[in-house]
């Protein structure tokens, strides 16, 4: 059989522009590694500069791709460039950028190896970006592994510290476990449909042309395993148990990074697999499958937010408190997930990312090198001693609690609104009850978000407090996250429109690229 190379290549659509952000991130990672070797004296400065330039370029490439966003496939449908990809990629890169800025002071203060940290973050970014763009089970797995493995290493970066080692090992074991679930699920889905491409899977489900008799059960089991695997990765209940330990043990800045960038990327893949791959309305099989995962996820969403919020009340450690709060936020985001509308989830993840990174940046400063002081009571009375840091933390916490005019409020507002809209459209009442549950949960959450503020500002100062040295990069991070929190809270129009742009036709997209 003669293969026509050019037509094969055409059908594959090898469009390098489509994977430009991933390429830049990965190449910068490699350059960073080389820089570390070449500039052994000034490795920290050189590597961080390279990393920052690389990430800014990645961000620019995303903006460049934005006008051409459409459902175009590249690489035989393995990579797709649409709003979902772009908005979540934006969040991922933003989180990495903040992590790099924070790391400059972190690696210096702790005397840790300097170059690798930035390299690892860049590779994690590349993996995360691939996850956002992936439209194929294989690409998803690839991205997920790149992102996960680098994050395991980052969690244990403070090698001498037993807590970090525990955190890293726990994260690795459970992460590997969940990856196994994912992989098995992918295999079963492939077995049932004969496809790995999500669009193709959707078509198979829509036309009810499964690979063999009785494949329906296999497909369901595969979908369930995917759900479990993704559930682990985004720390949704009942698969959340690893989160508090890992978040507490990892270096604070890594915790902030894990809780935002890679998590947002996994959310993107999770969204794509379920709302595109497993959503084929109209067909009996598609409806059945959709109904099953919809109901399961609805239960998981309520469980996640409730467990996160309720257990957070009892926390004495600020990192654990934020770990549980991030579980709760994943629950809210799942509520948006169920609407099938990407924009509100992406917007919520963006607000969450800004608040969480900002909060962790402050905590890193207060916790001192080695994360010695992470108990909430360690914060007693420091409110007016370090007003910049404390008020920032207070603003982030209030924003997470959903107090206007900060971003957290608008994020929740859009999420709940889109859930309500979707409920009106589909006529299913479940979503409305979920909104009610989420609102009640937000009320509960106010209590524990207030607690650190009470301790910081209303309690007397513990003796022996020294002001933390806040470097330039950390100041920049705080300014960025604070301004972002208020910007999204007061003027969300621009970002919302960007996340929500109507999908263009292929021709329009190509024209825009030229």
């Amino acid at each position, binding site marked *: 059989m003669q293969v026509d190379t050019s037509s094969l290549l055409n059908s594959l659509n090898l469009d390098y522009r489509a994977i430009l952000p991933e390429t830049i991130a990965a190449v910068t990672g490699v350059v960073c590694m080389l820089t570390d070797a070449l500039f052994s004296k000034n490795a920290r400065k050189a590597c961080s500069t390279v990393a920052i330039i690389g990430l800014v370029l990645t961000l620019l490439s995303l903006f460049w791709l934005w006008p051409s966003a459409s459902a175009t496939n590249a690489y035989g449908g393995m990579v797709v460039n649409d709003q979902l990809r772009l908005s979540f990629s934006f969040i991922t890169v933003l989180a990495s950028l903040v992590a790099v800025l924070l790391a400059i002071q972190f690696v210096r203060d702790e005397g840790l190896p300097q170059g690798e940290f930035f390299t690892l973050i860049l590779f994690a970014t590349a993996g995360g970006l691939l996850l956002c763009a992936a439209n194929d089970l294989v690409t998803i797995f690839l991205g997920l592994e790149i992102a996960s493995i680098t994050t395991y290493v980052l969690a244990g970066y403070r090698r001498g510290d037993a807590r970090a080692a525990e955190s890293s090992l726990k994260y690795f074991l459970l992460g590997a476990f969940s990856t196994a679930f994912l992989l098995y699920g992918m295999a079963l889905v492939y077995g049932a449909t004969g496809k790995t491409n999500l669009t193709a899977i959707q078509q198979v489900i829509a036309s009810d042309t499964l690979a063999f008799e009785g494949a329906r059960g296999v497909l369901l089991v595969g979908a369930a395993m995917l759900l479990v695997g993704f559930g682990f990765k985004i720390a949704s209940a009942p698969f959340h148990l690893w989160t508090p330990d890992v978040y507490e043990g990892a270096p604070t800045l890594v915790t902030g990074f894990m809780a935002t960038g890679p998590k947002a990327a996994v959310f993107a893949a999770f969204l794509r697999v379920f709302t595109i791959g497993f959503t084929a309305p109209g067909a009996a099989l598609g409806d059945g499958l959709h109904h099953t995962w919809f109901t399961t996820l609805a239960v998981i969403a309520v469980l996640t937010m409730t467990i996160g919020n309720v257990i957070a009340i009892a926390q004495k450690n600020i990192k654990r408190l934020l770990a549980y709060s991030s579980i709760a936020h994943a629950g809210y985001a799942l509520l948006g997930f169920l609407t099938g509308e990407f924009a509100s989830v992406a917007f919520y993840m963006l607000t969450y990312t800004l608040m969480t990174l900002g909060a962790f940046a402050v905590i890193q400063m207060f916790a001192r090198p080695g994360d010695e002081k992470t108990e909430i009571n360690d914060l007693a009375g420091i409110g007016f001693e370090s007003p910049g840091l404390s008020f920032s933390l207070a603003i982030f916490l209030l924003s997470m609690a959903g*107090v206007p005019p900060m971003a957290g409020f608008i994020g929740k507002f859009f999420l709940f609104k889109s859930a309500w809209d979707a409920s009106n459209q589909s006529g299913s009442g479940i979503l409305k009850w979920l909104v009610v549950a989420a609102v009640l949960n937000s*009320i509960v959450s106010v209590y524990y978000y207030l607690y650190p503020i009470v301790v910081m500002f*209303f309690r007397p100062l513990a003796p022996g407090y020294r002001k933390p040295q806040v470097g330039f990069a950390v100041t920049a991070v705080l300014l960025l996250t604070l301004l972002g929190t208020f910007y999204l809270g007061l003027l969300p*129009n621009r970002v919302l429109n960007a996340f929500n742009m109507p999908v263009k036709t292929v021709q329009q997209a190509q024209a825009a690229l030229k």
Partner: protein
Amino acid sequence: MNWITITTFLPLLGAVALLLHGMFWSGKREQERLDNEYRWLTLLITLVTFVASIPILLNFNSAQAGPQMVTKLSWITSLGVSYHTGVDGLSIWLVLLTTFLMPISILASWHVHKRVREYMIFLLILETGMLGVFVSLDMFLFYLFFEITLIPMYFLIGVWGGERRIYAAVKFFIYTVVGSLLMLVAIIAVYYINGGTTFDIVEITNNFSANRNTLMSVPVQRMLWFAFALAFLIKVPLWPLHTWLPDAHVEAPTAGSIILAGVLLKMGTYGLMRFNLPLFPEISREAAPIVMTLAVIGIIYGALVAMVQPDMKKLVAYSSVSHLGFVVLGIFSFTELGLQGALYQMLAHGISTGALFYCVGIVYERRHTRLIDDYGGLATPMPQYSTIFIIVSLASLGLPLLNGFIGEFLILIGTFTSDVPYAKLFTVLAGVGVILSAVYLLWMLQRVLFGETTNEENAELEDLDRRELFGLVPLVILAVVMGVQPMRFLNETKATISAIKQQVEIKGAAKVERAAK
């Protein structure tokens, strides 16, 4: 840019100025000098804000019922949220009350020595929040400002408060947040019921008054009414939702108390008149006997509890519960006199209770105790103070020719002529409250100002200094002016109030007709 927007955001700009001042221009001056700069700067900002609010009054057309001097700019387009502000008869005086009380509470905070800059910044943010609540004509904007007032007050109580400040601050926050989240749900529901395109209060009110019963069923209306009412009644606070108030008042610094009693509580009664009555008149009528019962219980309960308080500040706090009960009573009488009286009482209470808290703060500053038993015979060493204290107390208890009388009188007449069931009974019981308020206030005056000087420390107390006079005299003048010239104030509110009254009236009648069929 019109005067309303300028007035609203001037304090916020001032807060930014203070922040920058502390960050960049503090130089190497001593803390004491810097603190003084902050105080003067804040006083200046609040005075300028007050001056900026005067053109609003001058340009106000009292014949017009609807909102005036309106600014409408689109804001969050995908939601239909706009920056929509303006004033009408309901809000005009409350805006001026806010800008008027602010400089006075800055004067009352002159003795604060802890973290002066942050203190002033919080006060200024609070002012923007309060003004925003009164001028918002968009529900989303309203909610935003309503919540913004929460945070500075929380810090003011929690950082600059008394001994049990943490308890009081958290209680204040949680109570209010629960109420306001319910209100948020109601606002969103109203938004959807109205078609999901706008949060504009004027549009929604008009649409609701035309098609309310085709848009939603009566049970839905009841739920929404309840959600709004709960948020506002917690804020008022109506018995039995009042328990946060005495704690917050007692622990708050003097300025916090003045603002809390003077303005923040009015956000609740204002909300009732802005949302509950026009949006759900039928449900309001339905609920009136219950609300009025609670209001009357609050009047009498507040007065009785005030009577036995050993702590002056707590006494004034409970008197607020009692007086705000009158306001609620007037609102739910649905008569023009009652509503006018309620609005008037809101202003009068803001002036006289603000002054009372100021007076309590002045002796607390000198003696560091608020217990009535620790005082006695203050009239001899502090004649000016005693005179002012007596006048504002008499104003608060409703002596004719002073401001409290007009409000209570109008409310009582309004309630008496109201067609709400048992209204006459409520009037009689509320009348008992008037008597009781005379009892507790006069008894307090007697024990604090007159009699023998039992404690030697009291004999040495200094009388008011110039700063305190500057703070108190305007309040006294206003209390008298409002007492002898009420029509000046009532004229501006008349058109809006009668519009609200008509809305409640007509719809109520329609309901009676339906019931007859």
